[in-house]
């Protein structure tokens, strides 16, 4: 992408400098776009006439969005549309930034490698199949991308692996569907488990009309301590059919399964790991400095080599398999190896993301984050409404599912359960929230309205909970973008940002609204009439 961009820029510059005359010529015969070199180098798309919800700014009635080279060139009213632009008529429609799904799984990626045979290498390697490189697993033709786009999701934080013990289904490293509102224990609730009447001790009610299990609203329990195994996430653009622009960021969060920071022992290890990471970084920096000093006396080539050696010194220890394997036991306590994610967490490039539902858990996580000084994003936060002031004060953003329902736990006075007004309370207390659907994947079986395709609906439920339309729209766009540290690229319609634009046939939070066109990185990736994901019928 970047090389292409650079090439285009170069061509554009050359043309601008050397051939001033053809531009005038180009403006004259706009009918023949392909023959005018100046326009070919940087075609402009104009989305015209719609109500533009910029999210970070005001709503522009009858506004125009100009897109060039995959970026937003300009947003505003009464913009001059350059001659030769491709015009997309959005009059009577709503234009919004593409939605950002903060919890996503099983989209845009093929299952990890090693499933087929996996005996290509030498016998000395570990029998465990590694999942290979994420870049190689990207599948820009995944049908789920179309479903995501039809929902309005243009960017997703895709979970790559299951972390923690007991959450695994099938092979290690396989992504698992996460039911955010339904996590009483670290075990995943599979449909079989739900249907199994004897399995979990109490009777499951089955719906009379659809014979699906009625999931009981269970009281919240703090997650039991589990082994720490971070889950991997990656930020992926839903650019259907285009491979080069898909992967935005490989480590989106340092995500720990619920319970990974639950016991005293776990917390002790966590403190040690963070401290160890800081020490390793400091040491590496020192080494780099020393090397640079040495290199400066030796000459230029030497300094470059030394600098690189020092820079990768932190990860160098973890990069080699024998070291990591051999010191597995000791690394838990001492943190002698440093994973790239942990380094990013300590350097505040990414945030720690973990589930905290009860008041106690939330307070513990805030305290730990303040003590050890890293960014925190909390997920679940069912009782967060009780400590919203503390969350707001600590500036901890939360990932919340407005349709979560939990009863208070009987006999425990400090357990209060969920509140329908959580989102309103969050907004008032200045807690930024992103919404997540009840399930993180796209599944067209079972009851409708639970999976990722109901994400905008979930945001509408945030409005029912007392949040403003603006906050609910932010919860779909700029709030998750900020959590990912990508608010300079996605999450709103602003000049210079990625051209991820939706054209909707109604208000984004209306349940009747369909996505008409989804544009990702300036390219039309979804058209409702063409792609036939959702039925097209005339309401008039």
């Amino acid at each position, binding site marked *: 992408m970047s090389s292409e961009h650079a090439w285009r820029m170069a061509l554009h510059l050359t043309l601008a400098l050397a051939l001033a005359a053809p531009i005038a010529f180009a403006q004259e015969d706009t009918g023949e776009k392909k023959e005018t070199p100046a326009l070919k180098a940087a075609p402009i798309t104009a989305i015209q006439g719609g109500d533009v919800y910029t999210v970070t700014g005001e709503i522009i009635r009858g506004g125009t969005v100009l897109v060039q080279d995959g970026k937003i060139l300009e947003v505003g009213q009464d913009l001059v549309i350059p001659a030769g632009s491709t015009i997309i008529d959005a009059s009577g429609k709503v234009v919004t930034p593409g939605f950002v799904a903060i919890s996503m799984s099983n989209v845009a990626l*093929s299952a*990890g*490698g*090693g499933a*087929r*045979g*996996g*005996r*290509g*290498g*030498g*016998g*000395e*390697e*570990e029998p*465990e199949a*590694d*999942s*290979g*490189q994420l870049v*190689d*697993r*990207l*599948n*820009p*033709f*995944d*049908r789920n991308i179309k479903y995501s786009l039809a929902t309005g999701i243009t960017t997703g934080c895709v979970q790559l692996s299951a972390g923690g013990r007991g959450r695994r289904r099938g092979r*290690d*490293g396989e992504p698992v569907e996460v039911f955010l509102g339904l996590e009483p224990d670290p075990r995943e609730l599979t449909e079989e488990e739900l249907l199994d009447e004897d399995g979990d001790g109490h009777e499951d009610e089955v719906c009379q009309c659809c014979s699906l299990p009625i999931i009981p609203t269970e009281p919240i329990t703090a997650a039991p301590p589990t082994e*720490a*195994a*971070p889950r991997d996430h990656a930020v992926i653009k839903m650019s259907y*059919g285009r*491979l*080069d622009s898909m992967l935005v960021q490989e480590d989106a969060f340092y995500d720990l399964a619920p319970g990974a920071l639950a016991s005293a022992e776990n917390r002790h*290890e*966590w403190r040690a*790991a963070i401290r*160890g*990471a800081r020490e390793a970084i400091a040491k590496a920096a020192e080494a780099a400095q020393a090397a640079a000093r040495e290199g400066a006396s030796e000459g230029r080539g030497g300094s470059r080599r030394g600098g690189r050696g020092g820079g990768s010194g932190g*990860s160098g220890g*973890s*990069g*080699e*398999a024998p*070291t*990591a*394997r051999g010191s*597995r036991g000791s*690394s*838990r306590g001492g*943190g002698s*190896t*440093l*994973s*790239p*994610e*942990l380094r990013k967490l300590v350097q505040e490039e990414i945030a720690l993301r973990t589930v905290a539902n009860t008041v106690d858990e939330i307070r513990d996580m805030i305290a730990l984050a303040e003590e050890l000084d890293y960014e925190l994003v909390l997920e679940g936060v069912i009782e967060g409404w009780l400590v919203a002031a503390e969350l707001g004060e600590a500036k901890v953003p939360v990932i919340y599912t407005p349709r979560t329902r939990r009863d208070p736990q009987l006999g425990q006075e400090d357990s209060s359960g969920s509140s329908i007004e959580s989102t309103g309370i969050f907004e008032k207390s200045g807690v930024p929230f992103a919404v997540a659907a009840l399930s993180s994947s796209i599944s067209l079986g079972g009851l409708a309205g639970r999976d990722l395709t109901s994400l905008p609906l979930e945001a509408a439920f945030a409005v029912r909970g007392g949040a403003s339309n603006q906050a609910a729209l932010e919860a779909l766009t700029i709030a998750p973008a900020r959590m990912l540290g990508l608010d300079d690229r996605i999450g709103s319609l602003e000049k210079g940002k990625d051209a991820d634009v939706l054209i909707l046939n109604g208000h984004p939070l209306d349940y009747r609204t369909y996505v008409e066109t989804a544009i990702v990185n300036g390219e039309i990736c979804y058209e409702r009439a063409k792609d*036939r994901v959702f039925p097209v019928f005339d309401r008039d």
Partner: protein
Amino acid sequence: MVSSRRWCVLAIALFSFGPLSPDAAAQRTIAYRGATVETLGPDGRLEDATLLVRDGKIVAIGTEIDIPADAHIVPMNGKTILPGIVDPYYVFSVRQEPEVPSRIPEQFRNRFRGRTRAPATTGPFVRMADYFYPYDTDFKPAVRSGITSANLVAPGQGQSALAWLRPEDGKGMIFQADGLLFAAVTNDTQSLDIVRNGLDPNRGSARRGATSGRRGGFGRGGRGGRGGRGGRGGAPTPEREGEASEAPQADESAARMTALWKAVRKGQQPLILNANNAAAVLHVLEATKAYEDLRIALVSTGANLYELLDSLKGRNVTLILQPGLERVPYTSDLMNVAAMAEEAGIPFIFSLSINRSQLARSQDDPLFAVAMLVKSGLSRQAALHALTAGPAQLLGLEKTLGTLEKDKLANLLIFEGDPLESGSRLQQVIVEGSPVHEF
């Protein structure tokens, strides 16, 4: 002593004077007279033409040809002659040669097939010629469909072998043991590394040291495969092949792989890649972008390719398609991907054998699927070319196969009428001048 000499004389007598036995037919000139010939060469389509065959080769072809006095004349009465179909991608499930005592004659050897074992087809490099064991395979559907020569490949990666489809020859079916390099790819590191490391031999060995650490604990090592691109996937280096028990054999195999990849890199021979999904096609195009001389023969379904035709333009890629209309995914619409490729200017050839069930179903109307494509927009010339001359070119056999021209091999298909007309039967399949199938 005397009796054996007498037998000898009798045998010679039978050989030289017997009626048209296959051997005798090969010796004598056969004149196919009054045929419509689709030469697929510079002569194009010839009406009321004569084709002279001798010693398994085409001696002469044309409308005004003197038929030798001793020639055996076969009146064709308007039947159509087509060059034998060349199948560029015939997947053959490989089996290792069973250990049969050498005293057991060839025709009884297949009784030992219970002892055969199939080597893994996805992992190591498979040289088809080494594993070719044709005695328990039914080639009839392919033979009666008009496939006269085939490029034998296995499901994984390896070196193909070129064979005549003349099942009675047994292992002699293979006429070129050193075929082309083939590999199956999907969108994961392991399989893409087969291609990447093959094209860049330094890459695999340089990166092999850095494989993944394992999970566990907060300060775990790098994620799986993060540092180690070249972890697996068969780089053509000797230590890679350490799996084989005998080291010299492994060395030989590794050397062969290295040589093959070198030839592929230089464009001396095409690389056959079977991409099992659309994403894999994009990944392959990305991985091979830097190699300008590389020629790729890409095996995939139309459903995987129809959205990718734009990215295939201008690349040195020949598509290997299974003929037939295909459904646009997630709709009930049908599409003609061959015609779409023709329109986009992307070269394509057909492999009749990719769809085995279609092959088995086609009794004596084997080109029905191709005819459907021609009816719905594909040009007739391109369709016939994709069955014969196209694959022959890809396999480097254009000097002997693919068209009906003087001095080429007499691999002929004789159709009752137009081969692309429904109900026009394939009456005879001739390989090197002798019939292998007759309706």
